[in-house]
């Protein structure tokens, strides 16, 4: 059998890139698409939950518990359950991925708003800013670094979880990994795994740079 020796089945066969480029590209794009969709949806939901929490302080406890419970659901179980009801498709992959981001994002958004010093709020009120002006010119800008940090963690975590979505056939680079494992053919496995790690690092770096760019006043406080 050709696949039994190292020579026949190297960790990576470079010609695969040219021969299967369409497949790699498709997997990569799907991976990015799933990641961004999940994080974007997660952010919208989390912003709503955070707004609720800030408006009604008592709701922060239940919201956090809900988010933490979602986060505790094992990914395999989550995908497995949904596949029975929604079939193999984008939504089945997207719902768990989105759910996993909520704890991270809600926590960071709330941290951001709690980071607005009370004297700054008082000064804003004392100067006659309307609540809306205060929100957009003072509170949100101060919360931005925390939001970016949340997005950074959520995105990087999601990149990793997307690979798991391959078990329901919708996992971007994870499909290359699973395919490699099934066929005991290492090239797609190596490519899929390596690219997903690189993608995570790339997103990490991008969000770091974005954070630094958007928050010049905190430039000395940021760490890579």
């Amino acid at each position, binding site marked *: 059998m050709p696949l039994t020796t190292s020579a026949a089945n190297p960790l990576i066969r470079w010609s695969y890139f040219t021969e299967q480029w369409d497949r790699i590209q498709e997997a990569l794009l799907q991976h990015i698409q799933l990641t961004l969709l999940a994080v974007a949806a997660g952010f919208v939901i989390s912003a709503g939950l955070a707004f609720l929490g800030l408006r009604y302080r008592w709701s922060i406890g239940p919201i956090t518990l809900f988010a933490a419970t979602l986060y505790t659901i094992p990914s395999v179980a989550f995908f497995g359950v949904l596949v029975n009801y929604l079939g193999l498709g984008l939504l089945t992959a997207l719902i768990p991925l989105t759910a996993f981001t909520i704890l991270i994002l809600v926590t960071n958004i709330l941290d951001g708003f709690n980071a607005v*010093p009370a*004297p700054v709020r*008082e*000064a804003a*009120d*004392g*100067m*006659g800013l309307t609540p809306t002006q205060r929100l957009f010119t003072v509170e949100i*800008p101060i919360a931005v670094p925390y939001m970016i940090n949340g997005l950074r963690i959520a995105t990087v975590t999601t990149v990793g979880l997307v690979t798991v979505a391959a078990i329901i056939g919708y996992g971007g680079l994870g499909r290359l990994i699973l395919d490699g494992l099934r066929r005991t053919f290492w090239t797609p496995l190596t490519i899929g795994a390596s690219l997903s790690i690189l993608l995570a690092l790339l997103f990490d770096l991008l969000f770091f740079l974005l954070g630094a760019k958007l928050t010049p*006043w905190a430039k000395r406080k940021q760490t890579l």
Partner: protein
Amino acid sequence: MTTSTPAIRLRGVTKRFPGSSEDAVSDLDLDVEQGSIVVLVGPSGCGKTTTLRMINRLIEPTSGTIEIEGQDVAALPTTQLRRGIGYVIQQVGLFPHRTIEANIATVPRTLGWDKGRIRARVEELVDVVGIDRHMLTRYPDELSGGQQQRVGVARALAADPPVLLMDEPFGAVDPIVRTRLQDELLELQSRVHKTIVLVTHDLDEAVKIADRIVLLNVGGVVEQYASPDQLLRQPASEFVASFVGEDRSMRRLNLSTVADLPYHHGPVVEVGASPAQARSAMEDEGSEWLGLTDGACFLGWVEGTEVVDGRRLGDLHRFLPAAQVRPDSSLRNAMEVILNSRTTVAVIDDDGAFGGVVTLERIRRALAAPAADDATSPEGALPDAANAGTAAADPATGHGR
């Protein structure tokens, strides 16, 4: 004094916080003159900050009315009201994500001023509060506490509001910076003539800054509303007396200057006077030392025992004065100078000209005098006859004997 309508008028203002059985502020009446500095002082829980925050409606009173220049504040939208009132707090509350320039420009921007006008105003203000213009592009975190507070004042003054509310504005900086900021505030006030209401727990600060002090007791009860001197001289109640403390006389020394004392020539004669005239001058004062002047110039002290007939006063050995004060020195400062020089008398040096003398005894009398109606000028209270014994010790250098 200057206008009939007070800039700020509180009538029957009461605040009771939900869930509390006591009033935080109870039936408070207060008039604040246009262009004056009124300081609210009192122990914690006396409602001084609550009172301040009711003026710009960060707290809504339970009952009573507050007017600013005849306008009921409750009738205005809060945002509009607050844009017309400068507000400075202890922790400053600068916006950390905005440059100094943008911080100062906050209210002008919300008022929709054009860029050129905002820029000009910001530059004017940083000059007024003493911040370098190159700081404008920095962020608050890059400034010291004192600088931040100056920016806070500039931001509060940005739209040129007639009224300035300050809540413990110098509470968070070290004593040296605090003193400087207090001086700067007085300096600033002499130019901008705002109506300022300031809250502090520091009586010394109140005495130094205030035109009038409101001393509040727990529950927002006014114990006394008076000038600093009157408060120290004539405490209206036991509470005030204990609050201003045992050292209130020392505090009062800060309030008056040497120039506030009536002129006192002392045992001083022209250098060309006869020994008989000199002895008579010393006897009048009960002094063992004689001061000599040459026109407006003080020449020095000579020992009384050397003043004998037949010797010209100008030939006697002269000692330069060990203690000298200026007319604008505080009485406390004058006292320190005299005590430090181990004498009992200081020569007043009025820009090179002899301006009389000041003695420990005269300072003591100024303090002991009963209250005057116009408390800021103690002269009226001082006895005209200055026949107190000046000095047993030498008024010149300690080694002069």
